[in-house]
């Protein structure tokens, strides 16, 4: 009896040993959690309850030369949703849809398109809410703590179409931009134009607000905050009124116009047509509009003034004249006979005037845009000397303007042709090039800059829009053509006659001496049945003696340079001088 009791008592000792062993285990575990990993868990606990709300920085404003705001930031009441607190997004969004009258499908589409968004970062699902909509959201927020109303700075362009290509637009950063620019998901970055070129300067510095929140997401207390800093102010050389005038003139046409100051390189106006709406492209929504713009056969997103590389036609004759004078092939007074055609090899190169121009010298050849004069000069000069003489001019190279994705165009040469096409240069191609045909292409900006080189009698600046950002001014390069001044005086004399009585008469402006050159670039028609009109081009410099302004006009498939581009340039220059006289 006694033995049995002792036996049971003995065995029971295991129970107390087990308990103490488990206690020791739990104490050791607590030691691990609290002492060894205590720092980590403190941080996790803090992250649980401290909620960081990012405050977006307003982008810097952009001004034109006279202090008009052309890009600014406006406060928008935006509705956002925080995924971490969202239990049923479909339910929440259908409720939201009812109170703000935006279809649930659109809200859901936006919500689901942000799958990679951090769970605790608010995803904006509606912008620019009215006060009425805001108060309605506030009403249902009680039920849905994942909803947040934010006063957020959004980019706003007062003239979204007039300046579309110059200013560009902004948008939420893509994965690539996040990596390259060091921004965060959901940040706005410049996508095009000056917005993209000066994105870093315009971006500003984000602020934040640390809120204490409970597990349901209800905000309890403000812990810490830092206000955002606005981005740098950018002043540009643009003249808004001139830009608007050109914009209106170009409506319905395809092409580009560039007006710049030849001395400073400051761009006064740059219009590429057709345009787009910067406000709509900067929106997080408007997907239909974005698709429409991207897929439009009119290619409105394409900046024709710096990305459109066009054959420039007779404008190039000026370059040929400069090369020939520099190399001593001709003198300005030398006369050449134009019978209306020129045999070279076994090909017949025609002049545009069937009967020919008779005897012409440099001035009358430029005035009348005589082809045969330049065929003969070009043939005598040869391709190597031609390319060498004008290698310092802005052809076939980027101008370095402060806009992204500029194209360089082509200044053809035997080396270039061998390298890119793998076939040798034919002597006949030199003849075509002498009147600006063949492989030669240039952008309207390059044409204008070529005009600046002539206007300055030998040098040209780097073109730009920036006057200053955050108080820091523009510093550009100056290029020297290496051509003597008298040569420019000679061609300018011819160009003066173009506008006075030649092909560019339509560009005449009363009281202003204008030098110019027309260009008519024939386009190779792919369909022989359809008549394709030429690109109409005009390069203008005014006033001739001390030029203040250079203009290049290119209108696609519209007709002769003297008929379409010249009168347009004339109107623009007239506006420029009239307004200027009134203004200053």
């Amino acid at each position: 009896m006694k033995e049995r009791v002792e036996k049971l008592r003995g065995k029971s000792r295991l129970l107390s040993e087990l308990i103490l062993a488990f206690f020791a285990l739990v104490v050791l575990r607590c030691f691990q959690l609290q002492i060894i990993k205590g720092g980590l868990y403190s941080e996790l606990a803090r992250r649980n309850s401290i909620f960081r709300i990012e405050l977006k920085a307003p982008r810097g404003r952009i001004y034109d030369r006279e202090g008009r705001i052309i890009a600014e930031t406006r406060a928008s009441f935006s509705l956002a949703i925080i995924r971490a607190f969202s239990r049923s997004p479909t339910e929440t969004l259908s409720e939201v849809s009812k109170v703000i009258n935006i279809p649930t499908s659109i809200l859901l589409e936006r919500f689901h398109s942000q799958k990679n968004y951090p769970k605790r970062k608010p995803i904006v699902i509606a912008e620019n809410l009215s006060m009425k909509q805001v108060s309605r959201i506030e009403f249902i927020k009680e039920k849905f703590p994942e909803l947040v109303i934010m006063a957020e700075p959004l980019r706003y362009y007062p003239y979204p179409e007039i300046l579309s290509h110059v200013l560009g637009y902004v948008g939420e950063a893509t994965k690539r931009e996040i990596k390259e620019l060091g921004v965060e998901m959901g940040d706005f970055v410049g996508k095009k134009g000056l917005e993209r070129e000066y994105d870093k300067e315009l971006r500003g510095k984000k602020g934040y607000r640390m809120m204490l929140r409970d597990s349901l997401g209800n905000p309890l207390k403000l812990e810490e905050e830092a206000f955002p800093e606005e981005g740098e102010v950018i002043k540009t050389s643009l003249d808004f009124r001139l830009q608007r005038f050109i914009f209106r003139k170009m409506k319905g046409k395809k092409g580009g116009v560039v007006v710049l100051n030849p001395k400073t390189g400051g761009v006064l106006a740059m219009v590429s047509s057709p345009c787009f709406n910067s406000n709509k492209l900067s929106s997080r929504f408007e997907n239909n509009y974005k698709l429409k713009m991207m897929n439009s056969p009119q290619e409105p997103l394409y900046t024709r003034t710096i990305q459109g590389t066009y054959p420039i036609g007779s404008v190039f004759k000026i370059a040929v004249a400069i090369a020939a004078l520099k190399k001593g092939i001709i003198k300005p007074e030398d006369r050449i006979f134009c019978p209306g055609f020129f045999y070279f090899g076994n090909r017949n190169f025609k002049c545009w005037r069937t009967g020919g121009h008779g005897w012409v010298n440099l001035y009358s050849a430029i005035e009348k845009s005589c082809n045969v004069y330049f065929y003969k000069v070009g043939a005598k000069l040869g391709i190597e000397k031609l390319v060498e003489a004008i290698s310092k001019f802005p052809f076939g190279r980027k101008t370095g303007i402060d806009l992204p994705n500029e194209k360089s165009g082509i200044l053809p040469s035997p080396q270039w042709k061998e390298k890119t096409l793998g076939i040798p240069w034919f002597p006949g191609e030199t003849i075509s090039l002498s009147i600006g045909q063949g492989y030669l292409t240039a952008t309207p900006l390059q044409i204008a800059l070529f005009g600046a080189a002539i206007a300055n009698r030998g040098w040209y600046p780097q073109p730009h829009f920036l006057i200053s950002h955050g108080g820091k001014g523009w510093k550009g390069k100056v290029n020297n053509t290496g051509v003597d001044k008298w040569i420019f005086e000679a061609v300018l004399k011819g160009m003066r006659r173009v506008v006075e009585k030649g092909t560019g008469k339509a560009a005449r402006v009363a009281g202003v001496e204008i030098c110019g050159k027309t260009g008519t670039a024939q386009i190779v028609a792919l369909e022989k049945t359809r008549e394709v009109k030429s690109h109409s081009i005009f390069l203008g410099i005014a006033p001739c003696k001390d030029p203040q302004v250079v203009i290049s006009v290119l209108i696609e498939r519209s007709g002769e340079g003297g008929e379409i581009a010249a009168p347009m340039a004339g109107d623009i220059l007239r506006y420029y001088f009239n307004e200027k006289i009134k203004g200053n």
Partner: protein
Amino acid sequence: MRRLREIDYGILTSSILLSVLGLVGIWGSKGGNSPYFVKQILWITLSLIVFFLLVIIDYDKLINLSPWLYGGLILSLIPLLRGGGVSSWFKIGGVWFQPSELGKIILPLFLTKIMTKKAPSPLSFPWLVKISAIAGVPIILISFQPDLGTAFIYLSFILSAIIVFGMKKVHVKAALALSILIFIFSWFFLLKGYQKDRIISFLNPSEDTRGRSFQIYQSKVSIGSGKFFGKGLKEISQAKLKFLPAAHTDFIFSVIAESFGFLGVIVVFLLYAVLFLRIFKIGAILDEERAIILLYLTAGWLAFQVVFNLLIAVGLFPVTGFPLPFMSYGGSDLLSSYASLGVVNSILAWRWK
């Protein structure tokens, strides 16, 4: 009344101190003005009255009464099953209570009655079956409520009986094999989705912290963030901001650990160690076989529930959900815990007749 003089004050003091610490935790997570705090004080008072009542009742009388009590327990568990099988609560005269909690007092009494002077040591196979059946019937009934936490605690009665009487090596091996089979069977046929989730989430703690392992994760964060000295009651963000679910009930230990850090943890363990060591010390001076059996079976379930609640809180065992004896908020559990201590002290007080 002279029996009250025999009470072990070490046991009484440590259990009351644990309850006070529990109150502090409830105050910290729910606030001093919350109904939880006041109610808990009432429950502790009531539990102490039950404790003293049980001390002055001869435990022998309870053992003799136990077949009837056991019968009543089984019957009271059945209507719940009929009433839809959703609740483990029972209402008598306007007061809700859980018969399964009462069972924690009854089962040790009944097993003592059955085993005393009959069960061989080590236990034979028929006796293993008998003990398993006596505990197994309420386990099955409670599992269907479904209250897996309490059913799990009931396993402690079988375990304690086996520890006290010992088991043959053959049976140990067979039991191991059988439990593996039972686990596989119940995984595919018995366990509900959410129960499986708990086990899975325990095995993969790195999963989504918002999902199924949320509780374990948050409990670990609470404990860990307490560091050495704790954050103090006013700064316990985890419990106060509701990141720690069931902070005042099943996870009260985590609240204490967050508030008072590793120091608080040591205090809790010292109190529990004193409590159990004092209980086991009684075992050393007992002469009666039934007294020894009853003592260990009673202490067994208490220890079992304490140990597993803590293992869950520190993330070493999957969540099933049951309170921490003496500390967690909740009347039924406090009552059964203090009543068990009453029985223990009754054994001490009535060792001489």
